[in-house]
């Protein structure tokens, strides 16, 4: 069993907090450097790598869900360490400190942290200040309601689907609207009449396609536990549809 890094306080029952406490590998590295008052620009790579690996091992030991980024950083540190150990062949290489890129990233991240703190310090609404308002006693006019154009609505729909797709790995599936529209129709009919015969939900004039749409809508509603179907105990008794009740769910 690994030793806990000495100066990190770990609440006994919440080891996950170690992982939560850091925003990522750069944050963890920065913490290791800062707590020893080291200069970011001149990190003792071997020592810092050892400490970093201690944490990573500890996290692995407790089977914490270690983000891949932590392992990538571990590999990078090991690589820098080995390059530093290699004998320097020429003058030119001396200028080329293998740590340079890491230092740049650490500095950049530190600056980001600093910016976040600066932002948090700014006085803001809902914490230091509130917008003030007085009540207004004016004759209530008929306030015109906002107007909406169907095109606007369609654009909003497209925007929300686009955003959803961006944030999700799977596309929001496109269902034919006709089925969804029919689902609403069925529900409205069930609100007017608590029970409907299965056959009442089909309009033969709509033809084959209409019947299929109705059937799909009914199946969708069944699947979603919104309606239920019942049949009397006779073989050819008609099917009845009603809104699902809690007991039937």
């Amino acid at each position: 069993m690994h030793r806990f890094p000495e100066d990190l306080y770990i609440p006994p029952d919440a080891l996950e907090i170690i992982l939560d406490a850091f925003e990522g590998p750069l944050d963890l590295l920065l913490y290791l450097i800062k707590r020893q008052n080291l200069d970011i620009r001149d990190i003792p790579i071997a020592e810092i790598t050892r400490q970093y690996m201690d944490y990573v091992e500890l996290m692995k030991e407790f089977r914490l869900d270690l983000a891949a980024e932590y392992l990538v950083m571990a590999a990078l540190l090991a690589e820098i360490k080995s390059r530093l150990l290699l004998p320097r062949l020429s003058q030119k290489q001396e200028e080329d400190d293998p740590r340079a890129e890491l230092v740049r990233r650490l500095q950049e991240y530190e600056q980001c942290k600093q910016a976040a703190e600066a932002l948090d310090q700014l006085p803001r609404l809902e914490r230091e200040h509130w917008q003030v308002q007085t009540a207004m006693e004016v004759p209530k006019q008929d306030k015109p309601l906002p107007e909406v154009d169907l095109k606007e609505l369609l654009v909003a729909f497209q925007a929300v689907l686009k955003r959803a797709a961006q944030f999700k790995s799977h596309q929001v599936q496109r269902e034919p609207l006709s089925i969804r529209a029919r689902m609403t129709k069925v529900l409205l009919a069930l609100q007017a009449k608590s029970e409907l015969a299965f056959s009442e939900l089909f309009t033969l004039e709509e033809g084959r396609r209409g019947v299929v749409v109705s059937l799909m809508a009914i199946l969708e509603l069944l699947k979603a536990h919104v309606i239920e179907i019942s049949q009397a105990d006779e073989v050819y008794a008609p099917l009845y549809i009603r809104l699902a009740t809690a007991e039937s769910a």
Partner: protein
Amino acid sequence: MNTELALILEAILLTADKPLSLEQLASFFAEEQAIDKTALKQGLKQLAEQTQTRSFELIETASGYRLQTKQAYSHWVIKHQEEKAPKYSRVFLETLALIAWRQPITRAEIEEIRGVAVNANVLRALLEREWIRVLGHKEVPGRPELLGTTKQFLDYFKLKSLEDLPQLEELKELVM
């Protein structure tokens, strides 16, 4: 402290969204600073005096105290309402769009697609405008409401039926 009390009360009332009773006002003060009704009333009296030179005044309604614009200024203030045609927010339009194209849909499903909590005010506004209604309940734990559009919605957008809602593919043509 006394003048200070009037100002604290002013700050509280200016950020309240409804009239506040004496009890409610008292609850704004921590135990160690507890303030009795007499002191509160005195603070309010002082505030009322101080606002004589301001554009707003302290009034007491059935449910408590509130600061409101003086009548003399209603002439200007009323123009807030005359402001150009109001517009619905993006949140409003997106919520309505999802209810229209994806009905019957639950609140949780809207949240799932939009990725953020559904704004209660938006739903209320949609219900008030009678553009949406509760079609039924999904018989799963919590029995969430299934939302759908109304006839009024169709009428407003001059649609004969939901099938007439344009498909996304038509967007290009519409925008052109």
